């Protein structure tokens, strides 16, 4: 009954306070993980150092970024490998 009345008078069924809550959650996920390019560059260099101990990588083609989906954030790295170092090969 009440819902029907609400529809007649044009009130939308989703409460705007809930909508604001959801939108805030999403936007803050982005805001909070929005780290500076400088720090991103540092992360990239650190990854290069670690990986280079085990394999040769193509540093120029390497990509590191933060990616969001609806409720989580992931650090995604794409690191093209040129060759695996001798001592680390499986025999």
């Amino acid at each position, binding site marked *: 009954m009440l819902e029907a009345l609400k529809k007649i008078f044009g009130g939308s069924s989703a409460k705007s306070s809930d909508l604001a809550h959801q939108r805030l959650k999403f*936007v803050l996920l982005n805001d909070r993980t929005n780290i500076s390019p400088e720090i991103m560059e540092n992360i990239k260099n650190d990854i290069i150092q670690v990986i280079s101990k085990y394999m040769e990588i193509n540093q120029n083609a390497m990509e590191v970024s933060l990616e969001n989906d609806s409720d989580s954030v992931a650090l995604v790295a794409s690191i093209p490998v040129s060759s695996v170092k001798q001592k680390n090969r499986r025999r």
Partner: protein
Amino acid sequence: MSEVIVITSGKGGVGKTTTTANLGVGLAIRGKKVALIDTDTGLRNLDLLLGLERRIVYTLVDVVQKRVGYGQALVRHKKYTDLFLLPTSQVADKTAIDPQEMLTIVQAMRNEFDYILIDCPAGIEQGFQTAVIGADWAIVVTMPEIAAVRDADKIIGKLQSENKNIKLVVNRIRPQMVKDGTMLDMTSIDDILSVDCIGQIPDDEKVVDSANRGIPVVEWKNSAAGSAYRDVVSRVLGEDVPFKPFETEGFFTRLKHVFGH
């Protein structure tokens, strides 16, 4: 030893200065010796809210530039004689006060006061750094509005990176809207910001009236905002005060609003 608290927000116009004035008067009423420092250089307002605008001679900028000591710039409240305002300049801009200079002044003032409250300007630029540097902890003021909560989150991040303790004050709550589901409620705000809340202040016309008069609502017995600010004062003093539920409009008052005008 005194406690130095900065009142900040990120977004402008959410009630920092109103909160500073009310907390200051409230603490003075409770017998504390209090100094309020306005750091909104160029856009000062704290003097107006306290009714002290005509008694300013020297400002924070004069102190920084060593024309006078801070004691000469302090304006003593007539009614609350343990309440003092250190006003800032209305003509200079934010670059006139360097954070390090501010720190020196605040440290010097510590011996003399129980509480030093610093009213921060809006934004995250130099004015923010100047206001925050000397503070032991921070009160972040926000409103139950999507943009104000987002900006509060940004400020909270900045304060955390400077290892400041943070308490939240949510201002201008409209209980009827919260009840109708058209305004963010405290549960949602807690969920998002996860900061300990020490104040829930309703939207109250008397706040505007009190600004007109230069008498903060904290001393008004019949003001809902005033009563909420008295509770904030108690919590700052370390008392465990429960949050009172707000009165919402009853059915007949609402009918009156719908049909009345």
